[in-house]
C-alpha cells in the first residue's frame, strides 16, 4: 500500500467509531500492533523529546525501503506512533521524505499536533522524514 492508501484505510477504520472512547480504544490497539523496537536501540540517541511521554524510534534500511520500529511509555502515544509507523514503514526514502500526513487531522486528533510542545508526535514525524531525507542522500 502507498502512504496515501495506508492513511485512507486508517481514516476508513475510524469512520466506524462514533464515540471518542471507541476511537481511543482503537488507537491503543494499534499501539499493541506496533513493531517494537529492539531494546538495545532504546537509547537516548533514539529518544524523541516530547514533554510528557517518551518515544524511541529506530529505522532500518533494507532493499531501498525504510522499516521503522518504535516504542513509548504511554499507551496512547504508542498507539499514535503505531499508526504513523503503519503509514510510513516499508516505504521508500523519497516517499517518506515528501509524505503529506493528513490522516491525523481527519480522524479528529488534530489537537495532538497543535499542542506546541506537549506532544512528541510532530517531532516524531519530523524525525521519520529526516530518515527519509538521509537515506535518500545515501542512495544518490
Amino acid at each position, binding site marked *: 500500500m502507498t502512504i496515501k492508501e495506508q492513511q485512507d484505510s486508517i481514516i476508513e477504520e475510524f469512520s466506524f467509531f462514533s464515540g*471518542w*472512547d471507541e476511537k*481511543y*480504544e482503537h488507537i*491503543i490497539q494499534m499501539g499493541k500492533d506496533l513493531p517494537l523496537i529492539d531494546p538495545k536501540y532504546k537509547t537516548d540517541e533514539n529518544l524523541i523529546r516530547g*514533554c*510528557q*511521554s*517518551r518515544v524511541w524510534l529506530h529505522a532500518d534500511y533494507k532493499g531501498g525501503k525504510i522499516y521503522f520500529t518504535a516504542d513509548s*511509555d*504511554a*499507551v*496512547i*502515544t504508542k498507539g499514535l506512533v503505531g499508526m504513523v509507523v503503519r503509514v510510513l514503514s516499508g516505504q521508500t526514502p523519497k516517499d517518506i521524505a515528501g509524505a503529506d500526513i493528513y490522516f491525523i487531522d481527519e480522524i479528529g486528533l488534530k489537537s495532538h499536533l497543535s499542542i506546541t510542545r506537549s506532544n512528541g508526535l510532530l517531532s516524531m514525524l519530523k524525525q521519520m522524514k529526516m530518515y527519509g531525507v538521509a537515506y535518500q542522500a545515501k542512495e544518490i
Partner: protein
Amino acid sequence: MTNSDAITDHVLDVEKIRKDFPILQTKVYGKPLVYFDNAATTQKPLQVLQTLDKYYTEYNSNVHRGVHLLSQQATEAYEVARKKIAAFINAKSDHEVIFTKGTTNSINLVAYTYGRKFLKEGDEVLISAMEHHSNIVPWQIICEEKKAILKVIPINEKGELRMDEFDKLLTPKVKIIAVTYVSNSLGTVNPVREIIAKAHALNIPVLLDGAQAVQHMPLDVQELDVDFLAFSGHKMYGPTGIGILYGKEKWLNEMPPYEGGGDMISHVTFAKTTYNELPFKFEAGTPDISGAIALGAAVDYIQQAGIHAIQQWEEELIAYAYDKLAAIPSLRFIGDAKHRAGAISFLAGNIHPFDMGEILDKQSIAVRTGHHCTQPLMEIFNIPGTVRASFSFYNTKAEVDELVRAVEKAKRMLE
C-alpha cells in the same frame, strides 16, 4: 493564625460562588467543564473581570507623576490595590509589598539582590526537595555566581520534610532558607513556623514560596515573622502577569535594586543614579497597572468569601476526594502528608499519567499531568510524573464524583 477558629463565622454558598465564574458554566466536548487544575491557575470571578474592564474603559492611564485626572485615578487605584494586598497578608507597611510579574519573578528578585549583597564563597542556601523549579533555578544561578552551595532538605516517603535532617543542615553557614509553604505536586503543608523559628535563632532569613498557600489558608506575615513571601496573582483568582513579593522593610532597604528604569529612580545623571524609596525601588518601568488593580479585586473577593470558610470547605472537599480516590483499586497517592492543602497527586497501576490525563480530558475533566515543574521530586519518587487534581473553593463533591467515575473509566480503557 492564633484566632482562626473564632473567625470561621460562615460557610460558603458554593453554588452562588460558582455563578460568579463564567467559565464554570462552559462546556468542553459538550459536557460541563470540571476544572481541577487550580494549582496551575485559577479561574476568575466576574468581579475581577469587571474591575479590568472598568479600568480600561474609564480611567486607564500611566501611574505616578501624572498631572491629569485619569493618571491620578489610576495611581490611586494602583496604590489602593497595594494596601488591600498588604492588609490581606497583614504586612506591617504597604511599602513592603512589591508588585512583580509572579512568584518566579519575586523569587528571582530576592535570589539576585539578596544573593549579591549577602552571599559569599562557601556560604550555603537551603531549599527543600519538593521545591518548584522557580524556587530552585534562581538559587542555582546565584550560587554558581557566588560560589555558594545549594543544600537540600530531604523528604520522607510520605512527602514530608525531614525535620531531623533540617536540624543538621541548619548551620551558621546558611545565609538564607527558601522553602515552599505548600507543595504544588504533593499538597504537603510544611512546618514553616518551626523552620522560621529555628532559622531566626541563627539570624537566618526565610523566604516562603506562597504560590500554593495564600489562596488556601489564612496567612499573616507578621505572625509568621517570615522575611520574604512570594506569590502569584493568577493562582488566587487574579489575572496573569501580576504577582507579589512581600519583604521585611529592613531587608528590602539593604538589598540593591533589581531592574533599572523609570519609576525606580530618584535622580538620574549619566554619572550617578540615586534610587527611589520602597516600594518603587523594586518596581522599574510601567507596572502591570490593570493587573495590580484586578488583583486587589481578587483579594476583595477572597476576603468576602472568607479565607477561613474557604479553607474549611476545601479541606472537606479534599478529604472527600481522598477517600473516594483511595477506594479505587491499584490507585496510589504520591505525597501522603499529614498536613495537606490544595492538590492530590496520584497514579493508577502502571498507567502513564499522560494517558490518564488525556482520557480524563475527553471526559471533560481538566487535571494536570507530568512533573509539575518539580523534576527533582519526581526523580526521588522515581516516576515520570503524576496525575494531579487541584482544588478551589468553587469545586463541588459532585465534581469529585465525576472525577472518580472518569478515573475508573480511564483505568478500564488503559489497563
